[in-house]
């Protein structure tokens, strides 16, 4: 009976919030999922949730729609500007949790193993935990601990720990930090920040992973975290208990600007290239970090910067957020490849030779899109760290 009441109250809350929708369709204007059908976009998803609850229809078809959202949040920008300012992303995430926990139709089939991997091995791919720091071999990076206190903890994140593209970021950033004589270290037993578990509706797992990391932060007396992963950055600041309980959390673009300001680092090698920059959703729109990446890019001598069509608050998603990294929606819904290729095309339209970003997920996705479009000769995807290191 108590369970029924809880279930009803979640449904009531979702219904009430969604009934405030004016059905103006304006959210769909910005949704990266809209290809040719209204149902593919933010509007169609939120209406489907509303009627799903109203008519007690919690099918796999509803699940597919709800999990197709990249959680980029661009719909909210439009809703806030000219409509009812609904928290559309939050409503979709709440529904995911509801489908997963109460209705047992979530997550997407491919994501079940991913969540299990996060729980058992601390990373979504299920790679061995002991291989997490393998990327760092030869770089002489200390492990932060109670006995080896560091001023800055570099929180690497899963993608930059295991994925070959991501590892380029962790290696570059580490070498930059070393060059600047930053007293930093990494965690020997770092686990997933839990960000993507929450995006898939598994908040319980998100809490569990947060507790693990928080315990390690506490034990090593960590006060200052720098990360290259916007997803971890976001979840530390906005979803960890107490916003990380007083931890100073910075994305590396912020930290590198600080140490450049302090004269600890100098960028003196000229790089004569034309570049553009893709704002990652969780660094830009969700965390309001727009200027630091651009400031850092501007400090690299020789670069010509061309702003991409949709930028800053209106940046388009790379297509892999919200748990889509580990699933592909059914064919009737917009593929991740379509979304990422659309973004690469915008970068190509700027005439840039390099598409810069500051997120391992975006890096992986956009690199793949460049390949699938056969545009390797026209444009290269790089993390900003790569150019910073070249400019040292």
């Amino acid at each position, binding site marked *: 009976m108590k369970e029924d009441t809880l279930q009803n109250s979640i449904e009531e809350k979702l219904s009430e919030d969604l009934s405030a929708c004016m*059905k103006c369709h304006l959210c769909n*204007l910005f949704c990266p999922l809209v290809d040719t059908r209204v149902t593919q976009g933010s509007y169609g998803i939120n*209406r*489907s949730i509303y*009627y799903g609850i109203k008519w007690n229809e919690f099918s796999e*078809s509803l699940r597919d729609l709800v999990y197709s959202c990249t959680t980029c949040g661009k719909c909210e920008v439009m809703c806030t*500007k*000219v409509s009812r300012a609904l928290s559309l992303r939050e409503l979709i995430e709440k529904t995911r949790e509801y489908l997963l926990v109460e209705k047992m139709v979530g997550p997407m089939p491919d994501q079940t193993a991913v969540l299990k991997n996060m729980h058992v091995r601390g990373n979504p791919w299920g790679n061995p935990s002991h291989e997490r720091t393998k990327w760092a071999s030869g770089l002489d990076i200390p492990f932060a601990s109670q006995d080896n206190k560091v001023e800055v903890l570099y929180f690497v994140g899963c993608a930059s720990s295991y994925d070959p593209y991501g590892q380029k970021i962790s290696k570059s950033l580490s070498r930059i930090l070393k060059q600047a004589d930053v007293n930093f270290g990494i965690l020997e037993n770092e686990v997933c920040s839990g960000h993507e578990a929450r995006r898939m509706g598994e908040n319980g797992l998100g809490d569990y992973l947060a507790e693990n990391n928080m315990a390690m932060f506490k034990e090593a007396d960590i006060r200052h975290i720098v990360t290259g992963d916007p997803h971890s950055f976001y979840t530390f600041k906005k979803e960890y208990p107490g916003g990380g309980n007083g931890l100073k959390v910075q994305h590396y673009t912020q930290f590198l600007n600080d140490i450049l300001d302090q004269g600890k680092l100098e960028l003196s090698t000229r790089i004569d290239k034309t570049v553009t920059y893709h704002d990652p959703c969780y660094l830009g729109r969700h965390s309001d970090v727009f200027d630091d990446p651009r400031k850092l890019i501007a400090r690299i001598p020789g670069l010509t910067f061309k702003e991409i069509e949709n930028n800053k608050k209106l940046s388009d998603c790379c297509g892999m957020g919200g748990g889509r990294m580990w699933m592909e929606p059914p064919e009737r819904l917009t593929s991740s490849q379509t979304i990422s290729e659309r973004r690469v095309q915008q970068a190509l339209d700027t005439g840039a030779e390099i598409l810069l970003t500051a997120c391992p997920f975006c890096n992986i996705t956009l690199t793949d899109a460049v390949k699938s479009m056969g545009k390797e000769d026209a444009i290269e995807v790089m993390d900003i760290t790569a150019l910073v290191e070249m400019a040292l």
Partner: protein
Amino acid sequence: MVGEEYVYEDLFERINYADTLLPYDVEKEFLPDVVIQPGTAQEVSKVLAYATKHDVPVTTYGSGTDLVFPTKPKHRGITMSTERMDSLEINEEYQYLECGPGLKTGKAIKALGKLGYFLPIQTQAGSSIGGAVSINTIGHLADNIFGRPVHNVLGLEVVLPTGEIIETGSKCLRRSAGWDLGRIFIGSEGMLGVITKVRMTLMPMPETIDAVGFFKTDEEVGHVMTRMYQKKLPLPMDGEFVGTKACKLGCDAYGLDFPEGAMAVIKAMGRTKEEAVRNAQEVVDLFKSEGATEAFVIEDPETAEKVWAVRENVMRWGQEKNKKGGKAIEVNPVLPLMADAIKSLERITEGRTDLIAEAEAYLYGHVGSGSLHCYLTYPYGWPAEKMKQFVDAIWNVEKELQLKYGGIGGDWGWFPHRLPLYRETYGETSYAIIKNLKGLFDPSNILNRGNLEGEV
């Protein structure tokens, strides 16, 4: 006929193609049996021929951004979406654009803008060109400057309900002075055929600049806009009005220190920036001479953004009084009665015994094009039945006001709910003619069945 992958039987697809902007939910009995997305005129033709042969109702769907419910299937059947037919060709040599009906106006505006052209349909960016042409709407633009699609469309490709594909018009810029079958389809709300291609004339992109005037009363805005026409001033592209009550809400929401009262904001245009500024200044001078407490040409983009934000705040009006949402009335007064109509709208809730008495009313509108709105907001918690009564009451009062002030409107795909207004304004003979016309094109009455009959 259209390929299996473009046939959708899923419940949520059917819901999303049946739900409308009406403030109550769609009922299960009004869901289409199937949603299809043909990609070519030939595919549309096969479906319509089949539907006519087997008496299957077909509801046409552009983007679903109409503000009423022409896309709600009244008799189930097939909902035919034109979204896949979204091609665009801009032919600068011939000076036309040719597009599929599913092309979104936003995409067209962007593509044309890159080449220095202007789309004379400024409906919301997610709306479809086919839908706009079917309704014959141009959004907020002034008819006197831009005309409507019926004036700017050079030709159409249309699939008749019986399956024949016809072409109207030509590629030349000179339109037919005599019979032009294409005009019959424009504004007929998808009831006579399915438009599968639209050819429109290109228009050069004008330079624009905004100007604003603040007035002590709402009626003064009506007066000044009437004077703008009568004094033969260069008409602006957009002439928007936000009433005193709504203006205050917008200013409070964005922390703006604008004078109290009603606001008129215009987007002046010219061939050059200098001409646009000069034209804006003429309107500002008029505003001042007609009693504006403050009026100026907006030089900086930041102020322009703030001014338009006050206008764009419309869907949040009423929230300060815990109203759930709103429904707007459309009144299009004849020019000399603009101020009187505003006065009537200000008092719309007074002395009423229906549900409108319980609403909170906010005035705004596109005074530059002679269109006024009153946004009536309703409280949280009204059940669907009460909501329907409320909407009925709104349509009744809208009819009263349109008849009183000489308007007929129609920018929202209006026929089903405004049938009583149509009949009263134009008479039974006129209604019988369009019914006969419908029968001529669509003998089995498959297309948008129920709309011409006024089923809501």
